[in-house]
């Protein structure tokens, strides 16, 4: 129960949720609800693992994971943007599709050892007491990238012209359209980016944080937790980052509770009967529900909500494609 270990692991585990959640924030702010995150993550995790193994090059693996997630998301894009199907059902089917593809192409990957994303210390910063060992020591490159990625994403969405267009398309597509912004094009773009980041999140699992291929157990519902996190974060990348890291730390803390024989000065019941651990394993899921309740109440109070056009297909007049 070393706080440094827990927080350190929290940042690493949180990075998975962070990439997936920010990807979903991009998609949702453009008005596309993509519930297929779990499927895209799993497919990305498989693709990254497989290509890294086959090529011996982890960078090629990461790239493949991103492409895999992105390509899959385009299927959802086509169905929900051009064909105007129900985005909830389309997202669900994407989950099945991604999971199925990952399992089919992931045959025989279990137990293999591909090259992984390198881990290193950040010079100087790692020497800062407490913060250094938690934040800047022995993390994978992806974790450090995520540190930069969060503020950049926020800045992009809130303070730049393309970010403004992204917000407009998700809030009031007809306003964007009448002013010459390509609503469909932007929605495809951000759906794709969402998929790319979900794929990256998958590879963050299989090639970095908990390396390996454990078929559908690889993601174990983290894609869904990421979607819950987006709602909890009220579509704000900064809040999503806080949530993701907190969640990561909690997951790790829970795992650590099962280890020692003596915990907080008493005999650890989990040490005596490890089956109590099933209740511990429930906590991330229950916490997600609680986080949603808290988030929903805050949203009610402050009257902020989802992007106004989230999940609604845009049709200009009665015109065709």
């Amino acid at each position, binding site marked *: 129960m070393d706080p440094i270990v827990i927080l350190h692991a929290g940042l690493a585990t949180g990075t998975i949720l962070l990439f997936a959640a920010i990807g979903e924030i991009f998609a949702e702010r453009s008005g596309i609800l993509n*519930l297929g995150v779990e*499927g895209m993550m799993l497919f990305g995790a498989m693709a990254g693992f497989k290509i890294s193994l086959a090529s011996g090059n982890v960078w090629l693996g990461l790239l493949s994971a991103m492409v895999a997630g992105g390509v899959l998301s385009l*299927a959802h894009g*086509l*169905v929900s943007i051009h*064909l*105007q*199907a*129900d985005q*909830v*059902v*389309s997202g*669900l*089917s*994407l*989950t*099945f*599709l*991604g*999971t*199925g*593809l*990952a*399992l*089919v*192409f*992931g*045959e025989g990957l279990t137990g293999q050892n591909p090259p992984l994303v390198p881990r290193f210390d950040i010079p100087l910063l790692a020497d800062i007491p407490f913060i250094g060992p938690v934040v800047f020591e022995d993390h994978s490159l992806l974790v450090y990238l995520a540190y930069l990625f969060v503020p950049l994403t926020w800045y992009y969405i809130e303070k730049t012209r393309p970010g403004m267009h992204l917000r407009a398309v998700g809030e009031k597509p007809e306003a964007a359209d009448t002013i010459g912004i390509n609503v469909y094009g932007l929605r495809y773009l951000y759906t794709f980016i969402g998929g790319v980041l979900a794929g990256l999140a998958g590879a963050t699992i299989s090639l970095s944080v908990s390396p390996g291929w454990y*078929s559908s157990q690889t993601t174990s*519902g983290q894609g*869904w*937790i990421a*979607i*819950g996190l987006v*709602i909890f974060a009220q579509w704000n990348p900064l809040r999503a980052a806080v949530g993701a890291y907190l969640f990561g730390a909690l997951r790790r803390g829970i795992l650590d509770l099962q280890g020692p024989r003596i915990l907080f000065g008493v005999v650890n019941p989990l040490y005596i*009967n490890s*089956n*109590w651990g*099933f*209740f511990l*394993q*429930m906590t991330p*899921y*229950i916490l*997600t*529900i609680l986080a*949603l*309740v808290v988030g*929903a*109440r805050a*949203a*009610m109070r402050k009257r902020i909500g989802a992007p106004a056009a989230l999940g609604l297909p845009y049709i200009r007049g*009665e015109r*065709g*494609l």
Partner: protein
Amino acid sequence: MTTSVTEPESRRPLFPYRLELEKRIAEVPRWLPAVTSLGAVVAAFLISGLILKLIGGEPLRVLRFFYSATFGSWPTFSDTLVKATPLILVGLACAVAFKMRLWNIGAEGQFYMGAFFASLVVLVPLVSPESPKWVAIGAMIVMGMLGGALFGFFPGFLKARFGVNEIITTLMLNYVAILWNNFWIFDRWSDAGFQMTPVFDRVYWLPRLADYAAEYPAFRGITLHLGVVFGVLMAVFVWWVLERSRWGYEIKLLGDNPRAAQYAGIAIARNVVLVMMFSGALAGLAGMSEISGVVHRLQERISPGYGFTGIIVAWLAKLNPFAVILVSVLFGALIVAGREIQPSGLAQLLQGLVLFMVISSDVLLRYRVRLVRR
């Protein structure tokens, strides 16, 4: 300005035609939805075949195997119907919720809770093994539905009271339900350290056709059990509720336009909770039917993802309770065959593709597609 009379060569599109969707004005012909859905299923099979080919499989052999393993003989067809039984109930559960546009994707968890609560009847035991069979089975039905309803109640209540997205909560509760079951079968009810409970006493078993093999030799080895009758009866009941009852009218109105329903004096919150509970109860009944009719004990992996397949079943059936029965048989077959087809993810891939194709093909019901010159 893009204003010249003749467009410059470079601006001329590569493909001189474009697809245009034209909104249908006339009513859609009655046969069209069935035809497009069938076409979608066929397309999904073709694409899966292609993928199989791509990874070095033999699609045609798999298809032939698929047929012989599912519809080839009475016993295998009975296996298919046995797998279709939970799908019918779970598909109905999803159809009821989806009719109100409540996205209950927690049927999997509700299925497990139904199985757990039904097991309480046997293992506590709430009803002694000396009781008459109808009492034992009746108690299991009631408890199974109660268990499912309970896991429908939580997300329903959270949505009604706090506006919490039910998609995420129902999904999260799936994991909770499975872990909860694991605790009991690994720990309290473990049969000599195995990850399962002891086999239930026969009084808690749903009657099977094979039980009557003594009188009717043709029934030898036919595992079809009473659960399939539950499925059909429930389909009739759900149809009556949705199409003929006042509550069904409220559900329909709430599903199409909640603001209009509120305007018509319908209580939204109460209906959210009730419909989620009804949906959960149907999924719970599926869990009960599975342990009482097939497994005869509580154990791990009593569902190969029935709760999720039910979503596809409901959608493919266009939320029609009778169509749910038909579609369930097809997907039951898929599960039967899927156990033996390698690679193992193929069945899941096919399910995903079917759903994708179906919702894509729906565009044909709303639009006519035309190729026009640019």
